[in-house]
């Protein structure tokens, strides 16, 4: 009987090995292991065996069954795997064809610049203030030490609506409004971004509408050195840590002393090139110590408080930082321009 069992095993294993599909395997399972299968048939003869032989043959029979079952499982798995492999092979696609397009939107370059500047100053403890774009003559000019008929009013051509109403020419009225709201009673650290308007003909460097961002710090003992240090932090963050700044005297009615800040040209590293008109420096912004009359008009005692203010055009910063050569690009909104700066 032993020989019979071994013969069954041998035959079964060989047959399973040869099987080509799962149906053949199923048939083999029936043939060898089924109720009428050869193994069962053999085992029916167990009763004829001696008491001593029975357990030995029994164990052998179990081993044969296990061996055949395992061979069937292994072969089944292999066939399934082969079938899957074949199917996947058939599913091969051309990976070089273009993928499903994703609609990419994005912020305007000036928004990115503005948020970058805002975040930089927020980090230094500034709050962000906003104000009306249609302003009164008082907040746009008079509260900033620009009385009617002041010659410096000619520096800014203004869109008037009535004698007293105008489109703000600068974001400085927000400073005046903030100082007035605080009634001279507390220190101030703020920036005010926003749209401003001037009576200019639109060309490569002028726009009748543009955006400014101004800063104001008022406290006891604010110094011109504080302005210089603050602007240095700003310039290095916006234009690179290797940039240097320099201050030059200038004139604005609302500050005294007034300065203009230049940043060393990054194109030539200060050596002089066509971008910086051979000077090695590029003019970035204006600022100064808040004029005592401006402080007084807004309710701050200029013998106790001092402050600095600065202001810049966002377009100019963006143009310098990203090499944009025409201010009109910001307002034409050509998608081929807008989509260039989505990572900005």
């Amino acid at each position, binding site marked *: 009987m032993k020989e019979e069992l071994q013969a069954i095993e041998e035959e079964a294993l060989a047959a399973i090995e040869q099987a080509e599909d799962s149906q053949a395997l199923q048939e083999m399972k029936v043939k060898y292991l089924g109720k009428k299968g050869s193994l069962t048939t053999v085992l029916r003869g167990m009763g004829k065996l001696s008491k001593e032989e029975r357990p030995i043959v029994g164990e052998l029979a179990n081993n044969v069954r296990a061996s055949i079952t395992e061979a069937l499982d292994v072969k089944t798995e292999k066939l399934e795997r082969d079938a899957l492999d074949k199917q996947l092979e058939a599913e091969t696609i051309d990976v070089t064809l273009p993928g499903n397009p*994703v*609609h990419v*939107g*994005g*912020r*305007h370059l000036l*928004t990115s610049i503005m948020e970058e500047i805002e975040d930089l100053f927020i980090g*230094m*403890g*500034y*709050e*962000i203030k906003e104000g*009306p*774009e*249609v302003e*009164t003559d008082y907040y746009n000019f008079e509260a900033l030490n620009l009385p009617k*008929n002041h010659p*410096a009013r*000619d*520096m800014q051509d203004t*869109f*008037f609506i*009535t004698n007293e*109403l105008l*489109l703000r020419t600068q974001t400085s009225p927000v400073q005046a409004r903030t100082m007035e709201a605080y009634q001279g009673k507390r*220190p101030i*650290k703020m920036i005010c971004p926003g749209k401003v308007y001037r*009576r200019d*003909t639109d060309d490569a460097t002028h726009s009748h*509408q543009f955006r400014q961002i101004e800063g104001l*710090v008022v*406290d*006891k*003992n604010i*110094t*011109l*050195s*504080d302005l*210089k*240090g*603050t602007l*240095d932090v700003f310039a290095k963050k916006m234009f690179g840590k290797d940039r240097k700044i*320099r*201050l*030059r*005297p200038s*004139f604005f009615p609302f500050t*005294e*002393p007034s*300065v203009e800040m230049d940043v060393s040209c990054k194109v030539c590293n200060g050596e002089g090139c066509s971008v910086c008109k051979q000077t090695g420096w590029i003019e970035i912004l204006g600022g100064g*110590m808040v*004029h*005592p009359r401006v402080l007084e008009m807004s309710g701050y005692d200029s013998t106790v408080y*001092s402050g600095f203010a600065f202001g810049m055009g966002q377009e100019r910063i963006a143009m310098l930082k990203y090499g944009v050569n025409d201010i009109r690009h910001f*307002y*034409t*909104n*050509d998608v*081929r321009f*807008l989509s260039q700066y989505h990572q900005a």
Partner: protein
Amino acid sequence: MLVSYNWLRNYVNLDKVTPEELAEKITRSGIEVEGIEYLAPKSENIVVGYVKSCEKHPDADKLNLCQVDVGEESLQIICGAPNVGAGQKVAVAKPGAKLPNGMKIKKVKLRGVESNGMICSLQELGLDEKYIPADVAEGIFVFPDDAEVGTPVQGLLNLDDAILDLDVLANRPDALSILGVAYEVAAILNQPITLPDENLTVDQSLQAKDYIDVKIDSIENNPYYGAFVIKDVEIKPSPLWMRNYLMASGIRPINNVVDITNFVLLEYGQPLHAFDYDQFGSTEVVIRQAKENETMVTLDDQERQLNGKNLVITNGTDPVALAGVMGGADSEVTDETTNILLEAAYFDSASVRHTVKQTGLRSESSTRFEKGVDPNRVKRAGIRACMLLQKYANGKVASGVVEVDKLDKSEKSVTITIAKVNQRLGMELDEKDVTAVLTRLQFEFSIHGEEIIVQVPTRRQDISIFEDILEEVIRIYGYDHLPYTIPQGWVQAGGLTDIQLLQREIKNYLSSAGLMETLTYSLTNEKDAMRFLTPDINEEPAYSVGLAMPMSEEHSHLRLSLIPEMLRVVQHNVARTQTDLAYFEIGKVFVSREEKVTKQPIENLHVAGALTGLWHNHPWQQEKQPVDFYVAKGIIEGLFAHLELDVTFVQTKMADMHPGRCAEIRLNNKGIGYVGQIHPLTAKGYDVKETYVFEINLESVFSVHQLIPSFTDIPRYPSVTRDIAFILDMDVPAGNVQEVIKEIGAPLVKEVSIFDVYQGEHMEEGKKSVAYRLLYQDPSRTLKDDEVDASYQAIIEKVNKQFGSYVRS
């Protein structure tokens, strides 16, 4: 202000500083030098020559054959200029010379005759045509007789000069004069200054008061008027050096008298005016306000209509000059003039500015009066001009100036302390550092313990308070010496306001949704300003705000909607074959509630969008989805879902929008915006194709939005869904049924969504089937089947009753 380097060095020593170095120093100390221009590049071999003889070229009528002595040799030169003649001293470019225009001078033969050089005009020597005096504009330039033969012409014609272009801002009118710049440069270089010669010898036999009288009727606008009389002047060209300086300063020489007034104007910054005494029309100068509708003809031959705000110089009867702006044609100095009435006056800046604005006339004189002249230099400038007229016009200067003088010429004094200087600068300067600057600026001062009292010269009208002196100290001491510090002491937590944060959030959402941000103009045309208004604006009469003086019709009124300018952006891009566009913008609109604007309009922040072309396009997959109403609506639904606000959409009709494809967006039962397709006719007007737009007033959103959402527990009990399909009349809005289902189903029905809409085949005419999926949930327990069933039945009953519908079987 154009400043001649060569002229400037008459007053301050510039030996150790090149024009470039000087420009850099001036810029760093306060006045920006915008550029340096050299009159003519350094050229050699151009010298003064003496024309010994001049004959006609044997073979050419228009050419002359000249023998010219150039010092060490004599050259035969052929010259085509009609004004060449024997006995002249001329500029000769010798062989080897190179002219500023690049032309190289060589020996040549002209019609068979040798020519060894070229006799030059001023143009050929590199001077700007528009500044060359009329008498020498045609043909070659002839030097005065005293020019020495063989001398290089560079120096004689000032061709080696460098012109510095100073950008003088409103605070430094003192730098609108060579003398003012000299003071500035002297301070920068720490050099002394040499003042011009004002030594005048008058003719004692002539008394000015016998010739003229001065009367001022408008003393507040004209606190000083001085009249000088110069007799028997000889009108001729002014000396070469003076003409050179004028040309270098951008002023065309005319004749000696006019040139001298211009020269002194530039030198002192004090405008003067020379009248022809004999054409003045009287012996009395009367300064008064013009009468209404009075007229006069100015030097430029224009008749000017005057009014009471114009200050005029009159001869007692008629205006002869617009004070401080321009003289009159009648009393102009001409070649026939022999006697001069010279005006040196101080006119109030506001008065001059008014006349300039009214007439549009702006002159070298008015520019200076507008910004303010030095009260202590007015009379001195007159004396200086008299001295020059005596010297260069052979005039006899009558003794005494006839004047009316109410001018305040006192100096201001400003008190400073070193402690305060250091407190404001954040530095540690000592007294010596500060007084050294004051000395360099030639400001007198006295020290009284801690205090320094500074006397401010009247030439510096910009200085009146401590901070002004502070600026002088630091600009001369040098900004580079300032340390870098950050404000110390008071601290606050910086940050964005809730509204600013929400704006950023909306920009984030819309960008991620595939829309690109635009930035358009707030100013649009009058008609567009009032189009595409959101419903909240239309609740009351609304008006646009117009500019008093717009630059153009396209930008004359402030917008009440972002859409019109956004459509222009769409048009711009479509015209450039960019056809698939999705834009958004956040910006202010300006709503006036009064027809005639007297106060600031309401400024509301809006968000708007415009979409056109394909929303999705995957060509090789044959996937193409054009933008439609539901794409636009989906973006808005997504936005409000993101903001956790519940909005509804109500079919509406609106001007400029498709009558069947426009919805009002409502928040808390208030219309806050719209979404829809632009009316095809309107689209045609803007030259765009099928375009969908939306606009929402964000102020309404800000007022209800909660920045920090309240926590809702995640449901622990299972939900149950039920579907119902209703057969509805075609004109019943599916959204209305949805609202009713929500209402009836509350509080167990948490969500109602539409998952199928069908109309057409197998459907009764005029009917449609809309399928709703209801989500039932109770956060505190598991729902029982029978209560869900009951609710479901109640909903069916109520909807059928209200909408005349039935359930699709």
